[in-house]
């Protein structure tokens, strides 16, 4: 087991965002987490890094209990996040952003990894000395993914990478997710509102509602499930209302 969350609770002050969540990711899997806006998907991703720290429950990565580790130590164990909203460093160049991602890597790997990223995302090479803040949304998302990959993570977390992007970029992102997993054996935990795409690329999936896992199964099982179809596929991206 690569990552296991058991009974994880998380709070923002008095807001109880996660109510005892159990999620597991096995080596080599693509696992997706779907759910409406405000369900707690981003909170789950961030709580893996202790932001916010789980108020109850346990998070184990690669056999080690990481629940109480400082954020940077968790990252150092080999988990990399492409956060919601990308969070690239806007007043740094594209190359500097990639250097920031490579802080944990070996010095000698940098040139090799940079080349790999340029091959994966040619636009980044064209823009390499430009301020990251001047990139388009899609380009920034490519940069955020490339930055996350620069540390050669064992586990890649992606939080709504397709949000707000043009269809061309959405296609590219799912293609990269598939390629990273199939060809490089990368283990991936993917949060998406774009349930259709996500369930097709995923081996397994969880549905999160009001901070609780209400359904789980293989990607194709959930694609076929009437509940999922009704709530997340046919109605499109509807927001969660009081249940």
């Amino acid at each position, binding site marked *: 087991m690569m990552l296991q969350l058991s009974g994880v609770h998380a709070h923002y002050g008095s807001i109880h965002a996660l109510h005892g969540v159990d999620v597991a990711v096995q080596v080599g899997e693509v696992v997706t987490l779907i759910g409406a806006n405000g369900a707690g998907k981003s909170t789950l991703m961030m709580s893996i*890094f202790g*932001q916010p720290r789980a108020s109850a429950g346990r998070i184990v990565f690669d056999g080690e209990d990481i629940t109480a580790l400082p954020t940077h130590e968790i990252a150092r164990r080999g988990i990399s996040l492409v956060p919601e909203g990308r969070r690239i460093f806007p007043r740094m160049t594209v190359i500097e952003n990639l250097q920031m*991602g490579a802080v*944990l890597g070996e010095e000698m790997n940098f040139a090799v990894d940079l080349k790999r990223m340029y091959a994966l995302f040619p636009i980044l090479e064209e823009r390499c000395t430009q301020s990251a803040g001047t990139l388009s949304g899609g380009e920034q998302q490519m940069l955020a993914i490339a930055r996350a990959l620069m*540390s050669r993570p064992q586990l890649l977390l992606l939080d709504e990478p397709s949000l707000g992007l043009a269809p061309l970029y959405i296609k590219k992102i799912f293609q990269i997710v598939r390629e990273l997993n199939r060809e490089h054996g990368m283990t991936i935990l993917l949060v998406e509102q774009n349930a259709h795409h996500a369930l097709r690329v995923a081996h397994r999936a969880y549905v999160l509602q009001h901070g609780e896992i209400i359904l789980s199964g293989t990607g194709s099982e959930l694609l076929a499930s009437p509940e999922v179809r009704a709530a997340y596929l046919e109605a499109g991206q509807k927001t969660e209302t009081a249940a």
Partner: protein
Amino acid sequence: MALALQQLINGLTLGAVYGLIAIGYTMVYGIIGMINFAHGDIYMVSAFIAVTVFTILATFGVSSVPLALLLVLIVAVLFTSVYGWAVERIAYRPLRGATRLAPLISAIGMSIFLQNMVQLTQGARVKPIPPVLVGGIDLLTVDGFTVRLAYTQILIVLVTVALMSGFTYLITKTSFGRQQRSCEQDRTMTALLGINVDRTISLTFMLGAALAAVAGVMVTVYYGVVDFYIGFVAGIKAFTAAVLGGIGSLPGAMLGGLLIGLIEAFWAAYLSAEYKDVATFSILILVLMFRPSGLLGRPEVEKV
């Protein structure tokens, strides 16, 4: 004309010193969004360290000026970096996330503690130091007024230029510099990339302190005396320099320092030497009222 040239030289010298101290204010503000109210004292402490070490060296008969200066600088930088580290650790870190007023008060508390400690151990009198670097170059004489470039002034300007170049390189080109800048832009994201943000913040406090320490030592050499009042006022002037340049902006701190130094020198020569400090404080108030983002600062965007 000759007087103007002389004041230009004096102003640049002072400005270099203010600029060095201002960097500490601006860097700390950049990274944690708060003013380090204990920063002004570092200058005073390092000045007293300089006095003490120079006096000790003189009693042991160390007469080599470069050696004495180097020793004093090393001791002052070491001591004040530890102080800078302690201020962050004691006054700021435990209160991160509390209201913005809380660390401000604890920093002022540390500052008062430090001032009293120095006063107790050193006495409140103005202290002279043995002359370290005397003499200078007479540039020209007009109507009996000689424009003089003191060796200490050359020293101050050279050291400042070297430090600022090195520092600019550190921030723009090295791994530490990138981490420092990324913390300024998004601390959580920086931690998510595996960087120890606490350590980066500590180092920022220490670096700012070290630069101010060098400024303190050089001013001691320049004036030949230290007293509390000088330390206090220099701290506020450097703070004004940082605000004038645009708090958070590194080039702004350097530019602000130079401008404050020049304004002060010319004000003292042509308007009133008695009230030269008034110039600085008026500027501080005017900038805060009409251009709070300063000359080179970015307009304030609320941090998320």
